[in-house]
């Protein structure tokens, strides 16, 4: 074997393996976030802040499981720079990462690697909605008649004067004048360094305004029509670009709009199907429904509205509160009010049906009634509730019935409603905060 000693330096720039596996690890952490979805979507900071804020959650890096000793029971050996004696306190639990004596590969201890994963409302919504589905979408009831709806999505140089895009027109005007004045001063400055390129473009620009002159009358009038607004803004612009070296515009010169500057909004027509949806939020506000129950239903409706908005152009929401009688209430009332008394669920089903009949013909609306209750219905009402529910199911896309319970029994109403075999009726029981996620998945699957 050669004893030649070699010191080498290679190009390692293609060595990306560490980063690749690091991103795989990150991916797996994201998957773990997904598994926590049940907890995350009921987070108060999202539900109560209207979903505008980003929330941060501390995420541990993935653990590498193996057989290991119980760290809390284990004795360790440590070293100190000074004498210690039995009974001395080295530190509190928070510093335990440091306290780990070198135990030959005992490895890192919990609490060392924390990834602060920032989850925004949008991220969360995206992950969540990926899991949700709108069934019955190709239902026969989907309206066949479409009316063309204009969609302004393009800008052109010609068009109807009524559709002038003021902002873009002004911008063009400013740009043109800047070019013109630049053209005047082209003899000097750094532009001259590359005469061919800047020269030709300047000439091309020069030709344009001149040809446009014939129409100046018309464009002038339209400028006046636009009124004081553009003039005001023009002066502002001059003010802000007053640096003479940049825009050597003649000081008193008014902003003029030539026909070349005009920009028009143009539209395309698209067939527009009726894509309106209405959620009939129904809640039992009898005495037995407390803060917890309200929060659960609120969370559910929060995500439901946002989910439906990704599918429908307009999502309306009507709030129906009931005890033994039902009435329509405001959103705020819906989530805050509490009343005593018994429960008669049929009352709210009847109200919902009346609303549908009056305002939301099933032929044109996608109707989503959802009812939250603790299921404590007056026994004699069950039969009536059942038949009304059957009618609701017939009129709707999906009907959600949620019982928020803290016991392990389910109610007689639940048992009664189970007789409806139509898959459009989705029955869920929620016993814990994080079951909202399961409930959403059950209703929208």
């Amino acid at each position: 074997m050669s004893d030649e000693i070699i010191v080498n330096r290679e190009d390692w720039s293609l060595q990306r393996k560490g980063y690749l596996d690091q991103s795989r690890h990150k991916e797996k952490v994201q998957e773990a976030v997904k598994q926590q979805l049940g907890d995350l979507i009921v987070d108060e900071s999202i539900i109560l802040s209207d979903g505008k804020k980003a929330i941060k959650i501390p995420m541990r890096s993935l653990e590498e499981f193996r057989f290991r000793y119980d760290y809390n029971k284990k004795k360790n050996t440590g070293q100190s720079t000074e004498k210690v004696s039995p009974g001395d306190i080295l530190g509190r639990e928070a510093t335990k990462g440091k306290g780990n004596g070198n135990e030959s590969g005992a490895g890192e201890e919990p609490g060392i690697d924390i990834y602060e994963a920032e989850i925004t409302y949008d991220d969360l919504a995206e992950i969540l909605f990926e899991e949700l589905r709108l069934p019955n979408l190709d239902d026969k009831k989907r309206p066949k008649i479409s009316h063309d709806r204009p969609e302004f999505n393009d800008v052109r140089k010609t068009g109807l004067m009524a559709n002038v895009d003021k902002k873009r027109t002004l911008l063009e005007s400013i740009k043109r004048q800047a070019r013109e004045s630049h053209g005047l001063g082209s003899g000097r400055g750094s532009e001259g360094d590359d005469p061919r390129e800047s020269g030709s473009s300047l000439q091309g620009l020069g030709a344009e305004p001149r040809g446009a002159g014939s129409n100046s009358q018309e464009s002038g009038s339209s400028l006046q029509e636009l009124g004081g607004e553009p003039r005001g803004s023009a002066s502002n612009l001059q003010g802000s670009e007053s640096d003479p070296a940049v825009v050597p515009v003649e000081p008193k010169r008014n902003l003029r709009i030539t026909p070349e500057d005009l920009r028009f909004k143009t539209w395309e027509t698209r067939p527009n199907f009726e894509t309106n949806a209405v959620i009939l939020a129904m809640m039992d506000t009898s005495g037995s429904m407390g803060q917890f129950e309200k929060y659960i239903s609120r969370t559910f409706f929060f995500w439901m509205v946002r989910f439906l908005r990704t599918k429908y152009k307009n999502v309306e929401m009507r709030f129906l509160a009931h005890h033994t009688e039902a009435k329509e209430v405001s959103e705020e009332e819906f989530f805050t009010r509490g009343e005593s008394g018994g429960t008669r669920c049929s009352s709210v089903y009847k109200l919902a049906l009346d609303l549908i009949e009056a305002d939301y013909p099933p032929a044109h609306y996608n109707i989503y009634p959802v009812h939250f209750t603790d299921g404590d219905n007056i026994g004699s009402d069950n039969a009536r509730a059942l038949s009304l529910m059957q009618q609701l199911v017939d009129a709707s896309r999906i009907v959600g019935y949620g019982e928020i319970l803290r016991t392990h029994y389910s109610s007689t109403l639940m048992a009664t409603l189970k007789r409806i075999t139509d898959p459009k009726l989705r029955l869920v029981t929620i016993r814990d905060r994080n079951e909202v996620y399961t409930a959403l998945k059950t209703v929208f699957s």
Partner: protein
Amino acid sequence: MDEESRELSRIAREIADVAKGMGLDFYPVHFEICPPETLYTFGAYGMPVRFTHWSFGKAFYRLKMQYDLNLSRIYELVINSDPAYAFLLEGNKLVQNKLVIGHVYAHVDFFKNNHYFSRTPKDMVERMAAHAEQIREYETRYGRDKVEQTLDAVLSIQEHVDFRSHIARRPENKGKRPKTSRTRSSFIEKYADLFPEDQTEEAKDTKSRREAEDLVGYLIMRAPGIEPWQRDILSMVRAESLYFYPQIETKIINEGWASFWHAKIMREIQLSAGESLDFAVMHSQVLQPARFSLNPYYLGYKIWESLEKEMGLDALFELREVENDLSFVRNYLDRELVEELNLFNFRKVGAHWQVTDTDWEKVRDTLVQGLVHGGHPRMVVSDGDYEGRGALKIRHCHEGLDLDLVYLEKTLAHVQFLWQKPVYLETVLDGKKVVFECDNGLVTRHQVGEEGEKKT
């Protein structure tokens, strides 16, 4: 070759001569200068080329972050192979590299001469590259997720291989051969090179009273439900684990040896006044006693230093051949050293970390206990056909320390994934015998009562 490399080559040659003159005996060493990303990648993977797994990415992230935040710095990395490879951090000062090169030669001397390394393949760089290639092929053929799942499972038990499988068995266990099916014996032939002969016999010998030490080996040979490619992955991970284990069990003694020698070598070579100062700073940083925790460089260095005083330099060469951390600490950590180094035992009492002992024998014994079996609990296969339904039974050889239950359950599920049929694990918790059962990934716990305990 650039100027810096040429200069370093010259210095390396000079240091090699000095080291040889002092009695060190090492393989040729190829030095490579690499940028931090590369060095920290090698540090995370343990090898320049190794298979892909997220756990390495996690380690890389942590190492790299510590470097970026200036919390720690890896100056070098040396690979146990012949020729050896050493990687130097780009941007090391010249004097830092001098120290590092001396340090590296002493490590390579240790790799070459220490008995525990005598069975590690000297071409492991190439072998691991081949493993990486093979596993990548399995990924394309069977899908990344399946390969990852298998790796997750086997990596969770990678420490549970028999590092002493080469040591001969007692004769009474020989010659007992059970009937094995055709496929199984052809399988054993395929992997026979992985097992020294007596080990193979033991693995086959289910009904024997002997317990199998090598959990991974046992799964390779006998797991009923896994695919051949999965067995192959298991055997690759096992081979890599066997290769790394000697490094784990000689951390203190080897780092101490290298530090001891880099100090000696640096005293022999010409240094300017400025360099001497830089050397002193770096040397003391490397050997700095950490607050509370134990710096293996420092502990090892101090033991070697005291041994030199006691026995003279020549005797040390013999010790570096025969000792590992466990025997080194047990035999040579004495009262004077424990007191000089202010070593102590500590444990968690309530929410506090509290010093429990400073008595030197107790401190030494705790340290030794932590070094047994590389610091990992000892798990043995006690039955491969538990209760006659093909279940696997593992026994934790409880040595006074209970297991971490969260980790136990997760790891057991990994073992069950590989075994496919139910897996049982027997251990002791708070003085009581407990059996965990894992079936379909779900773990249940059984307290073993009076009637459950069978007398043998």
